[in-house]
C-alpha cells in the first residue's frame, strides 16, 4: 500500500463517524459477495458455452464498487467500465436481468445487444459499462454537467482504471470538472495492470491521486480492498459534490485476482504479490468488520438463492428475435 487516506489539495472534508451502522455494513457485504458469486458463476457458464465474447472479472476489486455505491442515493448516476459487474450490482441491478443480458437473452437489461461489456441499468441510473478504456469519463463528466443545468442535487461517480488515467480524456475531463466545479467523484480503480502492463511501467509517477490537484481537484488515495474506507471517503466526496464544492479524485488501490479477461491466465502477474493481496481479500476484510457469522451466513444464503434463480431465468429466457431485430434496422 502506498498511503492511506492522504488528502492532497482542497478544503478539509466533514468527518464521517468511525463505526458504521450494522445494516449498512451488511448491505455493502451483500454487494461484494453477490459480485464475487455472480462472476464465479459467469466463469462456469462461460466454460459451458452459455456466455460468449469478452468477460472481464472484477474479482478482488469488489470492495470499491460496493463501498462507493453505498455512498450514493438511488437517483445519483454512475458510469461504469468494461470490468463493470460490480458497479452494476452495487448500484442495485436485478441479478436476473443482468445474467440474462450476459447470456445474450431478450430479457436482459439491453435485450441481449450489450452483453457484459455494455451493460447498463437506467432504472438505477447506471449509465452503463463501456468497451472503450476511458470512454466513460467524459460521459460521466457530462452527466454532472447535465444535473447542473437541470438544477438537481444529484451526484455522479465515474469509475475507471489506472489504465484509463493515462488516456487524454482523463486529463481533459478532470480539468473540465475542476473549472466548472461539477458534482462528480472520479473513482480510479488502481488494480495495477492496464491489460498486462504494470502501472509502474505505464507512468513516470505512480501517485495517481496526485494528478487531481494539478487540475484543482482534491486527490485522495484509499485502500480499495477495504470497503468501509472506500465508503467513508466516497461519502465525504459525495457530500462535497452535493454541496456544490466540486469534484474529487479517489484512487482506490487494489489488485486483480486474475488476468485481464476470462481467457487471459495473467501469467505476467507477480504470484507473491497476488498472494499478499489475497490475504486482504475484500470478502475477508468485510466479514471481519461485521463480526457476526450468523448474519453474514444469512446474507450469503439469500444471494446464493437469488443467483441460482438468475441463472435459471437466463437459461430459460428467449433469444432476441432475428426478425424483430432486422425489421428495426433502417437501410
Amino acid at each position, binding site marked *: 500500500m502506498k498511503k492511506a487516506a492522504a488528502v492532497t489539495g482542497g478544503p478539509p472534508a466533514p468527518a464521517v463517524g468511525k463505526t458504521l451502522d450494522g445494516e449498512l455494513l451488511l448491505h455493502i457485504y451483500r454487494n461484494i459477495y453477490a459480485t464475487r458469486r455472480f462472476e464465479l458463476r459467469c466463469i462456469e457458464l462461460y466454460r459451458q458455452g452459455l456466455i460468449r465474447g469478452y468477460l472481464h472479472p472484477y474479482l478482488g476489486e469488489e470492495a470499491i464498487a460496493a463501498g462507493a455505491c453505498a455512498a450514493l442515493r438511488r437517483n445519483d*448516476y454512475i*458510469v461504469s467500465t468494461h470490468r463493470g459487474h460490480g458497479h452494476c450490482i452495487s448500484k442495485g441491478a436485478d441479478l436476473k436481468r443482468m445474467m440474462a443480458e450476459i447470456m445474450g437473452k431478450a430479457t*436482459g*437489461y*439491453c*435485450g*441481449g*445487444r*450489450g452483453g457484459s461489456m*455494455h451493460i*447498463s*441499468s*437506467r432504472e438505477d441510473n447506471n*449509465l*452503463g459499462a*463501456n*468497451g*472503450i478504456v476511458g*470512454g466513460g*469519463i*467524459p*460521459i*460521466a*463528466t*457530462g*452527466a*454532472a*454537467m*447535465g*444535473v*447542473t*443545468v*437541470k438544477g438537481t442535487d*444529484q451526484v*455522479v461517480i465515474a469509475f475507471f482504471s489506472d489504465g484509463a488515467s493515462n488516456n*487524454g*480524456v482523463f486529463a*481533459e*475531463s478532470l*480539468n*473540465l470538472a475542476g*473549472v*466548472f466545479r461539477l458534482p462528480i467523484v472520479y473513482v480510479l480503480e488502481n488494480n495495477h495492470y492496464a491489460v498486462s502492463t504494470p502501472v509502474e511501467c505505464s507512468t513516470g509517477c505512480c501517485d495517481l491521486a496526485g494528478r487531481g490537484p494539478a487540475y484543482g481537484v482534491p486527490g485522495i488515495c484509499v485502500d480499495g480492498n477495504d470497503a468501509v474506507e472506500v465508503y467513508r471517503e466516497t461519502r465525504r466526496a459525495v457530500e462535497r459534490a452535493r454541496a456544490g464544492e466540486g469534484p474529487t479524485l479517489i484512487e482506490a488501490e487494489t489488485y486483480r485476482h486474475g488476468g485481464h479477461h476470462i481467457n487471459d491466465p495473467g501469467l505476467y502477474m507477480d504470484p507473491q504479490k497476488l498472494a499478499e493481496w489475497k490475504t486482504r481479500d475484500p470478502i475477508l476484510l468485510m466479514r471481519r468488520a461485521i463480526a457476526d457469522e450468523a448474519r453474514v451466513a444469512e446474507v450469503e444464503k439469500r444471494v446464493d438463492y437469488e443467483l441460482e434463480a438468475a441463472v435459471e431465468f437466463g437459461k430459460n429466457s428467449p433469444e432476441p428475435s432475428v426478425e424483430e431485430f432486422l425489421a428495426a434496422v*433502417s437501410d
Partner: protein
Amino acid sequence: MAELMYREALNRALFEEMERDPLVFIMGETIGERGGSYKVTEGLLKKFGPRRVVDTPIAEASFTGMAVGAALTGCRPIVEILFIDFAMLVMDQIVNQAAKYNFISGGQGRVPMVLRTQGGAGNGLAAQHSQSLEAFFYHVPGLKVVMPATPRDACGLLKSAIRDEDPVIFIEHKLLYMTQGEVPDGEVLVPLGKAEIKKPGRDLTLITYSRMTLICLEAAAALEKEGISVEVVDLRTLVPLDKETVLASARRTGKVIVVHEACRRGGVGGDIAAMIMEEAYDDLDGPVMRIAGRNTPVPYNLNIEKVCVPSVEDVIEGVLKVV
C-alpha cells in the same frame, strides 16, 4: 419574411430553441464572450448566462463526451466544434458512444445531442481547416447528418436537429455564413430527411448538398440559357437520405450527376450513385456520374486551392458531357 445571413439564421434558431426549452444548452470553444468564430452564437451568453452557454477549454473529445452524458440525464446539449477537421479528435465519443448508446442499451436511453461544426475549402485555410469529412459520419449507423445550403434551411434544420431524439451531426459551410436568403417570419421548421428540389428541370438531375447547391444552381441557370433544363435536388440531410425524392427525380430525367465538395474517393456520391443505379436502373439513360473534390489535401495557395473543389464551370462541363 426577413432577409438573413446564414449565420444569422443559425443564431436565430439557437435563440428560439434555447428560449423554448431550458434543457437546451451549448458548449464550445470561444462561443460565449466572443460569440463564436463565425458569430453564430453571438448574444447567447448575455441572454442565457454561463450555465447554458459554456466556453470550454480546448478539450474537444471530453466536452463532446460530456454532451453524451448530459443528454442521458435529459438535457439537449449542442456542442460546437470549430472546424470539422477538429472533429477527428472526438471520433470515439461520436462513433463509439453517441451513435451506439441507444442501440447497445437496448433502447434504455436516447442521446438527443447536436454536434455543430463547419467544413469546406475557401479562404486559403489550408489542409487542416478546409476538409469536407461528412462521409465519416454518413458511414456510421446511429448518426444523422445534416448539411444545409440556405439560411432558411439552416434555421429550420437546426431547430429540428435540436428537437431530434438522436445524435445529429450538423455541418455548416464556412463560405455560406455570409450568404443571404429569405427566412419566413414565425417558426421555421424543416424536417430531417426531406430533400428539396431547389430548381425543377427536365433533362438532367444534379443531386447535391451544402455549398455545392449554390454552385449547381448557378450552373443550372447558365445551362437554362443554352436550352438545357437541369433539376437541382438539394439533399439537405444525408442521413436520413430522402431516397424517394432522389429516385423520383432520377426516373423523371433519366440522367443524374451527384455533386459534392468532398474528395471523390469514398465520398457519399459513390454511395448515392450506387443506390440510384440499383433501384432505378431501368429508367436511366446512362451511368450516374460524380463531380467531386479532388483526392488531395487542400493546399494553402488560392489558385491551387480553387481547383480542388468543383466550380460552376466544372458542373457545366460535366452536364454537357452527359446530356
